[in-house]
């Protein structure tokens, strides 16, 4: 097979909205408000929003998952491509605008949450989802064992695929389970019946908020990733030192929200210190947007330096 001539210019993404594919390219500085302005007209939505006023760049800098990752996966499964500014100022295309690719090494997922060592995002290509027109929030209130039972019933079975989010949340001394539902209005009754059934089976009190906008929890101060079966227990342990603690029950991700103050970085570090060993042993991780990334080990430094050297080679 003949060798094709190399391309002399990058095939950078230019802003677009593809309503058929459900894909949208817009600047990394765009917010949920900007996304809604473009996607809403086509009855499409980008469900992974933590703070409607924060930019996409701030989202991926602060978190790898959002509560709706229960249904749609992490940010890296919902951002298909990036225009990426390299440290020298040149911009490279990373990823695609189509929903599947196995063309070359996966720099997209590597870069998305890698901090600034390799540069920064300029534009994102988002995967949008159908806006079904109706959002509902369910809140289960009970003692911890009953809440655990609720989560088990919500996740272990065929219904799990259809909850936008199943979160265990603590606020001060209060704990509850929050379920987000997004469906066509004519299916709301079916979802309500299932939620009511779970409440009846577990003895939990169910509060339903019909037709409410999606809940926005804000950008977390600390994020940690463990296994789903450990998430509620760990959230309970950490909750005493956080204003608010949100455990995404299927993904095993915990978002901690700390009270404001100049010592937030120190508090974040102190809070996590006892748990780091176990997290790492499980292949989990943690980070805080108030703290610099963990320094790489010697082995990792060698790989990182090779990557940098090759990227900068002319």
């Amino acid at each position, binding site marked *: 097979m003949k060798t094709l001539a190399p391309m002399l210019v*990058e095939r950078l993404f230019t802003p677009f909205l593809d309503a058929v594919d459900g894909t949208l390219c817009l600047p990394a500085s765009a917010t949920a408000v900007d996304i809604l302005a473009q996607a809403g007209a086509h009855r499409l939505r980008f469900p992974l929003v933590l703070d409607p006023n924060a930019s996409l760049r701030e989202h991926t800098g602060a978190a790898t998952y959002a509560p709706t990752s229960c249904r749609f996966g992490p940010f890296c499964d919902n951002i298909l491509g990036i225009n990426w500014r390299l440290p020298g100022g040149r911009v490279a295309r990373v990823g695609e605008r189509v929903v599947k*690719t*196995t063309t070359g090494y996966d720099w997209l997922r590597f870069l998305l949450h890698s901090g600034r060592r390799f540069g920064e995002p300029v534009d994102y290509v988002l995967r949008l989802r159908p806006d079904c027109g109706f959002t509902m929030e369910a809140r289960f209130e009970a003692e911890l064992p009953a809440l655990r039972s609720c989560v088990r019933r919500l996740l272990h079975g065929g219904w799990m695929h259809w909850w936008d989010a199943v979160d265990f949340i603590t606020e001060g001394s209060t704990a509850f389970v929050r379920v987000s539902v997004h469906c066509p209005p004519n299916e709301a009754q*079916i979802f309500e019946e299932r939620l009511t059934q779970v409440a009846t089976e577990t003895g939990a009190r169910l509060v339903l908020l019909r037709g409410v906008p999606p809940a926005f929890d804000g950008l977390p101060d600390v994020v940690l990733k463990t296994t789903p079966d450990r998430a509620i227990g760990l959230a309970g342990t950490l909750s005493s030192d956080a204003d608010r603690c949100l455990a995404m029950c299927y993904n095993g991700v915990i978002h901690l929200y700390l009270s404001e103050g100049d010592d937030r970085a120190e508090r974040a570090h102190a809070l996590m210190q006892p748990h780091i060993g176990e997290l790492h*042993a499980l292949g989990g991780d943690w980070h805080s947007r108030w703290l610099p990334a963990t320094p*790489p080990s010697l082995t990792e430094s060698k790989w990182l330096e090779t990557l940098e050297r090759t990227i900068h080679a002319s």
Partner: protein
Amino acid sequence: MPPLPLWSQLKQLLPRGRVLDSPAQLAGYAADALGYKSYLPDAVVIPADAEELIGFMKGARRLALPVILRGAGTSLSGGPVAAQGGVIVHTSGLKRIREINVEGFWCEVECGVALNDLDAALKPHGVFYPPDPSSGPVCTLGGNVASNAGGAHCFRYGVTSNYVLGVEVVLLDGNVQRFGGPAGGRGPWREDWKRFMIGSEGTLGAFTRFWLRLLPLPEKVWTLRATYPDLRSIETAIHALVAHSSYPAAIEMLDPRGVAMVETSQMAVGLPKGSFMLLLEIDGPAALVDARVGPVAELLRHAGSSDVVLSDQDAIRQKLWKARKAAGGLLGQLSPDYVVQDAVIPKSALADVLQLVYDEADAAGIRAVNVFHAGDGNLHPNFLFDSRVPGELEKVELISERLMRRVIEVGGTLSGEHGIGNDKSAYMPLVFGPDSMRLQWAVPAAFNPSHQLNPLKVFQNRRFAT
């Protein structure tokens, strides 16, 4: 003292495993499922277990031969073949399912586990691992991770990279590294290195085991099959389905040439002549899918089908799938050779690109059949040819090049789930500009700078210099 013969050197590295070097044995490893390009390896080793694979990799650098990892050899991209000679490492000995953790929604498996064996082990626990390439009965998870495999149900469930929580890999320096684990994060590393490993096609290291994410089994499935008289009407149906609130799990398409192939075979199911066939599945709790199936069937009719068949009964569902599943097998019976492409395109370009396939193939006198994952825009045009006929392969390669140029022009990509291998490596310059190409080359520079692992794959000029 003269160096030991290769067989003896390899046997020292694998005292319990097997070393194959007779021509008859090696012939079985000369090609993957693509078939028409074959390369005889110098030897094949079959480690008895993970420990032996690690031992072999630690000694591999001293061999100064290319090393090619291979699962079941069902790749469709010319991936696990000895394009530059060398030793093929067949991972069939690493087939333990080490743990199934239902509460944590994860499992730990060795790289040689067959996909359907994992499915069978998971089913009694009420969970499943969604990627479902059609080679499921034999393909291994190692091959799936190496090529980021997909399958029919990826429209909603996603591909392999969406489900890999962690990988254990032996690098060329002999060190065993674990990237991620049951929790699916970075582990103690600063960066998420497993992202490079998934889809790396055996060019960065040898996988030993994986931690995979699981989902609860869907409670109920409806399968719907519809036929359409023309490309525009089936395209209308596909566009409506991908935006529908029922979120189909699979949206598959068979073109009239595929329909004709099935209907003139023993696998005929009575599809109308000249029709386009659409097959889809919706799944979920019974209360939900039973409410959804009526509107979905109506959507299919509204797009122009007068022939919608649907069922929630397993036996009938299997019959509805029959034409789709038979198509792959029939291709191999109809022609000595075939090339299957794997491009992904924006779905708005579906009719445009399919027409190009027909026009180019017809003009060259090459038979083309399209059976593919329409929901993802993941085309699988199959070009049937006979490599013994002078000029036929060249015609197919020319069609493929024109197809790939058009795919890139409309915003698509070369491969969605098969990988690049050496079948599509020539087209990589169409995708990557100067800076993104440097990013690509930086990855093997970090892990496999001499290209000893699977040379001449992914990029044409990845040649191992001994």
